[in-house]
């Protein structure tokens, strides 16, 4: 073991020239050997090179460097390296660091100020260093003590911390300096000295810095030592008005108002600057601005520039405030225009208005269509020739899993369309272009399978890869069952419950087994991109089977086969299929099994004959699922099987399209769990929305439930999908606003209440068109109907009102104004009256339940909006 200093290295430093030291890789061993004694004997130029090099490689070398500088042996190393060294100089104990710093006058007088000039990096900065230091022993404590003791001038420190904030540091690193500045507790007089610095920080691109500067200005204002002059404030305040934070923008507005009140001659400029808050995204800021403008109405009336500024930005303003702002600017809003038209009694004016009436002026009504049915998608075209199949497969295995493309490729194999490629790897005809294309494909399949095995990814895509490789003859085990079993055994655990991927695997294995028996058919084939089949296709398939002969099938799905076929056939076709089977009198075992399965299912279906179509499906599935002896239960279990694989979920929906209601129910439960427990966002949940987003599944009651939960999600992918589904469903008038509204109201009072999230997403939907706006208005109205019911049911004092309900109310108000409609529902009106407190006296007469709802009156904003809503006519 070597001891330091090492004589050899010492000797090197004493004899080497500057050029030689520059060439040497100076690591920490060298820094240990460059002692003060050695440094004294070195040539100054060589020492400087050594100090520069070692400081870069060993940050802890800074203590030695400081002693060298103190003794006049060398200069500072490059500044950034030196500053980083200084930060690291303090380790655990502030007293030790303080003692060291005070020992060197040049440090406290000059070099420590460099800390205020350098941002540092990802690894090292004052903010990062202090974050992991213990309380009372941070750099901010050390610098504070130095300032209190007068070692470092306090005024200079206050100024330096503000200058640091103006150096464009990122938010995390900048925040250290604002925190430190406030820690020094500047007095009002000191703050006045620093006024220009605070003002310039209002333009900082770092939002917390803007808030910090504004708070400092407020402190000055509060102290009333010296008023903030409008001339100095106004040119700088505008960026704060545009800050995303509501508090900051309102604070800035308040400062402007105060300055304008003190200096009335500056009011026109104040209004001009304040007008930029018109485009602020928060309605409360706009409201504050309106209040300020209304107070100065007379000035606006004589200022055309200001009127124009208001008019230009009217579209930014919340519809609820547009009318007031428009009145200030002497303009008419779209809503006001239509009201004006309605009120016109002059016949000529009416005629003129009728001519000019635009689409937006027509009162839009949204009515959901009555009939809901499955949209089966397009017919799947099977690939016909080998070369196309090879090229499609090459592309498919590289792209994310596409169930329809997978089906096309599998069907081509199952139906014998690419029989020439079966076991092509071992074939002698290696000179054909098919063989030349197959070789790279086989190689790639082998690589991909190996990679997935290493990563333990045994999902649906994995089984497609193994299926393809085995078909092409590239697998090391010739027997398909053995080959598939080889991978099945390594799966975690040995769950007896099948999931979507397992069912898919069973189908693939069956196809391979059938190929060896010369059976080119697939009873589980999907006919359309929605995963559906039809009666003719089922009968044709059964006819191809040898009479009374067994068709080959993997053991894992043998009993499930008839139910899997039926899971692709709409419920309404069951009776027809049964009678067709009875007419055709097919001898194939699968035909008989199908007849039996249909008999079981139809018995339950008849039981619920009186129920609504899609609701009936759900009831039938639920009852069949309870009979564990029936293989059908395995299908419902497969849907319930938890998975983090988006492909498996996609495939499950594709394999069992007629069980979509049950699938959505499961999806809603999964999505609810994410919201309730704030679980790590899981992209696979997006797959529950896919059948709806593709327009394949009907908007059943359970689909509405899934979409309602989707409104409360935070994950952007799920939110975008929910928005897609809602926009599309409204376009096609398949969305039942009453169902989704009632469910939303229910969830607002549940443990996953997220009114803000729901409001933001619904607003996006409402902006699409007047029809969408109307649909959203209806949803919100129905949701408030339900809220009235929930408030009565669940009210337990002050906690009853959902937090942030104001967001829902505000959107409802905006949609109602845009649609030019009042609150139509008496239940909703009662809820709003309860909220606004206008129904207190009548509530008592209505009994205990209503009294409870009046107790829920809480939250000024919700109360105000409720009043506005009730005032709509």
């Amino acid at each position, binding site marked *: 073991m070597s001891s330091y200093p090492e004589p050899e290295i010492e000797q090197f430093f004493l004899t080497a020239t500057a050029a030689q030291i520059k060439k040497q890789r100076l690591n920490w061993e060298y820094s240990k050997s460059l002692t003060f004694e050695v440094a004294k004997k070195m040539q100054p130029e060589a020492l400087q090179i050594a100090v520069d090099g070692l400081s870069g490689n060993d940050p802890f070398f800074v203590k030695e460097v400081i002693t060298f500088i103190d003794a006049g042996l060398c200069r500072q190393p490059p500044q950034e390296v030196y500053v980083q060294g200084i930060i690291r100089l303090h380790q655990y104990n502030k007293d030790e660091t303080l003692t060291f710093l005070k020992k060197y006058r040049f440090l406290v007088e000059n070099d420590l100020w460099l800390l205020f000039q350098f941002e540092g990096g990802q690894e090292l900065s004052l903010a990062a260093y202090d974050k992991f230091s213990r309380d009372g022993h941070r750099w901010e404590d050390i610098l504070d003590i130095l300032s209190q003791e007068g070692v470092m001038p306090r005024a200079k420190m206050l100024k330096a911390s503000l200058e640091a904030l103006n150096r464009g540091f990122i938010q995390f690193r900048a925040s250290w300096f604002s925190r430190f500045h406030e820690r020094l507790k500047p007095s009002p007089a000191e703050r006045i000295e620093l006024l220009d610095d605070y003002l310039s920080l209002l333009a900082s691109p770092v939002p917390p810095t803007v808030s910090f500067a504004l708070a400092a200005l407020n402190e000055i204002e509060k102290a009333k030592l010296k008023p903030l002059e409008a001339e100095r404030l106004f040119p700088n305040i505008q960026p704060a008005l545009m800050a995303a934070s509501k508090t900051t923008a309102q604070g800035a507005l308040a400062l402007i108002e105060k300055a304008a009140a003190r200096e009335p001659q500056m009011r026109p400029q104040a209004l001009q600057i304040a007008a930029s808050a018109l485009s602020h995204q928060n309605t409360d800021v706009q409201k504050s601005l309106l209040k300020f403008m209304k107070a100065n109405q007379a000035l606006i009336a004589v200022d055309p520039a200001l009127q124009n500024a208001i008019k230009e930005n009217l579209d930014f303003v919340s519809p609820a405030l547009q009318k007031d702002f428009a009145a200030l600017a002497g303009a008419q809003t779209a809503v006001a225009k239509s009201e004006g038209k309605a009120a016109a009694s002059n016949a000529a004016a009416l005629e003129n208005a009728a001519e000019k009436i635009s689409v937006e002026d027509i009162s839009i009504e949204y009515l959901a269509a009555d009939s809901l049915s499955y949209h089966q998608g397009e017919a799947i075209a099977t690939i016909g020739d080998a070369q196309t199949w090879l090229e499609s497969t090459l592309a498919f295995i590289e792209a994310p899993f596409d169930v329809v493309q997978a089906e096309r490729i599998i069907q081509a194999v199952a139906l014998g369309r690419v029989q020439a490629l079966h076991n092509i790897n071992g074939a002698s005809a290696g000179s054909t272009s098919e063989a030349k294309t197959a070789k790279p494909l086989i190689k790639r399949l082998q690589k991909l399978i190996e990679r997935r095995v290493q990563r333990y990814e045994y999902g649906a895509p994995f089984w497609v890869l193994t299926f393809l490789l085995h078909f092409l003859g590239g697998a090391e085990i010739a027997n398909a069952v053995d080959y598939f079993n080889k991978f099945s055994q390594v799966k975690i655990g040995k769950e007896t419950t099948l999931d979507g991927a397992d069912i898919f695997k069973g189908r693939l294995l069956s196809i391979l087994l059938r190929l060896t028996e010369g059976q080119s058919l697939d009873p589980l084939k999907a006919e359309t991109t929605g995963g559906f089949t039809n009666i003719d296709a089922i009968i044709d398939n059964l006819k191809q089977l040898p009479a009374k002969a067994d068709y080959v099938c993997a053991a894992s799905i043998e009993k499930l086969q008839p139910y899997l076929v039926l899971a692709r056939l709409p419920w309404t076709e069951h009776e027809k299929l049964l009678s067709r089977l009875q007419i055709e009198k097919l001898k194939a075992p699968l035909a008989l099994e199908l007849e039996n399965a249909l008999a079981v299912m139809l018995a339950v279906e008849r039981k619920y004959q009186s129920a609504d179509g899609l609701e009936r499906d759900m009831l039938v599935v639920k009852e069949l699922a309870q009979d564990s002896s029936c293989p059908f239960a395995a299908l419902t279990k497969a849907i319930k099987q938890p998975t983090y694989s988006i492909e498996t979920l996609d495939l499950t929906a594709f394999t069992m399209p007629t069980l979509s209601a049950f699938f959505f129910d499961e999806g809603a439960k999964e999505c609810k769990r994410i919201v309730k427990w704030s679980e790590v966002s899981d992209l696979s949940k997006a797959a529950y929305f896919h059948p709806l987003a593709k327009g394949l599944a009907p908007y059943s009651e359970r689909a509405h439930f899934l979409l309602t939960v989707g409104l409360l999600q935070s994950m952007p992918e799920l939110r975008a999908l929910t*928005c897609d589904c809602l926009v599309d469903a409204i376009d096609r008038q398949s969305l039942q606003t009453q169902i989704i509204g009632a469910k939303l109201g229910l969830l607002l009072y549940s443990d996953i209440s997220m009114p803000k999230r729901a409001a933001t997403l619904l607003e996006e939907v409402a902006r699409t068109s007047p029809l969408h706006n109307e649909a959203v208005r209806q949803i919100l109205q129905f949701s408030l109907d339900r809220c009235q019911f929930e408030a009565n049911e669940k009210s337990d004092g002050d906690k009853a009102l959902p937090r942030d309900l104001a967001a829902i109310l505000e959107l409802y108000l905006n949609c109602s104004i845009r649609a030019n409609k009042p609150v139509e529902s008496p239940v909703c009106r009662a809820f709003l009256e309860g909220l606004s407190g206008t129904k207190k006296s009548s509530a008592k007469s209505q009994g205990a339940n209503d009294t409870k709802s009046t107790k829920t009156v809480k939250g000024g904003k919700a109360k105000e909006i409720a009043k506005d809503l009730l005032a709509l006519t």
Partner: protein
Amino acid sequence: MILHTDKKVAAMHESKAQAGAISQTINYGFSSTISTFERQPKLELATSLREARYPYFFEGRLEEAHMFARCLLSLAKVVETRFYIPPNLLQRLLSERDPVITSGAGALRFEGFSACASAYCRVDLLPPAYDGEIIEKGTTNVDFNPQMKAALAATLQSESLEIGVGKDEFVLKKGNEKTVEKKVKLPLRWLKSFVEVQAYQKQMEKRLTVSKVEALNFLRNLPSNANNQTVFFIVPAGRGLRLSQTVQSRPSANGAIATPIQIGGLKRLQLLKDLVPLIKQSQACALTVYSSPDGLASEWQIDMKEGLRFSLTMTSQPFRGFSGEGRVLENLTEIEEEKLALLRSALQWRQFLSEESLQQSCNMNHDALQNALAALGSRGLVGFDLSSNSYFHRELPFDLSLVESMHPRLKAAHKLVATDGVKVLPSLESRKEIQLEVRGSDVTHLVTGYEESWRCTCQWFSKYQGTRGLCKHILAAKLSQAQKESQELEEEEVQIEQLP
């Protein structure tokens, strides 16, 4: 006029190509700063030009400087941001790079890439936006330092701003100022991106135009927690835009089905959020979105006011840098140096080079001109301006001839041809296509060409289907075909010469 030969540029910057990066020392006469000049703020932009004949590259004055300042700040934000950090890159985060500025024919263009090369940003300053004169023509780096950025941030809306882009005069004023020297390692990907972005822009078409209100609504609603890997589609929603997760190919105005614009890494788009509220120009068409026909790259253009434009061009995903796209590779296999020289002489620092005028002046057909422009683009000599749908001349201050030879796919293709890795298969009479066997890393690939369409059995082609340029096997096949054709031509010429 500043026309650097490749040798001069190389010598000037002491460029040395290393693995994946070019070490470059850039000397600035001073640090860019905002000073006060006759009671007016003056932006002094330092450049790395040494051969300028005039003290100032540009000198002028801007009204409503606030907008310009915010544009420059956004540009600075792009060039200093890495929107995607590859998992294997741990500590090797690259230094900040400075944007480049091009001046000539009345226009000043500031441009730069994000460190990951997935976002390209340009600020165009055209005559109506400034009051001044462009004295010098050329392209150079400009020094963007934290102090200047902080001063830009503090520029007020009501202020006007004097701008000086140059070197000498400021040095004369402050005789003892130290020259600012920045040592940066420019990754090759950044340089290659300059080549690729113009190829993408050339293919782009106008897809969406939205008002200021709708643009702001869209940008404010962008989720901040979106996964970098997730691709969203941008679809119209009423008069505005929204994010979608469903591919909805909707018919465009001319009836053709347009693939929706794809965007991942939404943080890049959020850069526009600070600029949109400042737009003065045309409230109704505040934000224009262009995209390539496949929707895989898009340009988001904001006309701040007349003559001041901010453009942000992005790939569909932040981990897909422009550098890796390789759309120009095909053109690079067919370079004719004579035509290049002819075209280069026609550029003349013009800021709007229309294809028609170039075809006429150089006597080239469309294909030849495209190849030549792509080749010039690959040497950093032209950029593309979508709003005017024309190329503009610029000469990047880097030795880009190195880049061309370092395109990994092109380099590998040359190697394959040189080592007899390409074998032409006898073509069947029934088939009009040609087939070649090209050696792969562990298997031989089949390359098939039919007219202009080429296919390969390799992973790259299978994955991207040509959307990210050709694979090395197709490039090798094309190079080999080109070689064969030129050999045949030479033989024919020899035979003709030998005829009596």
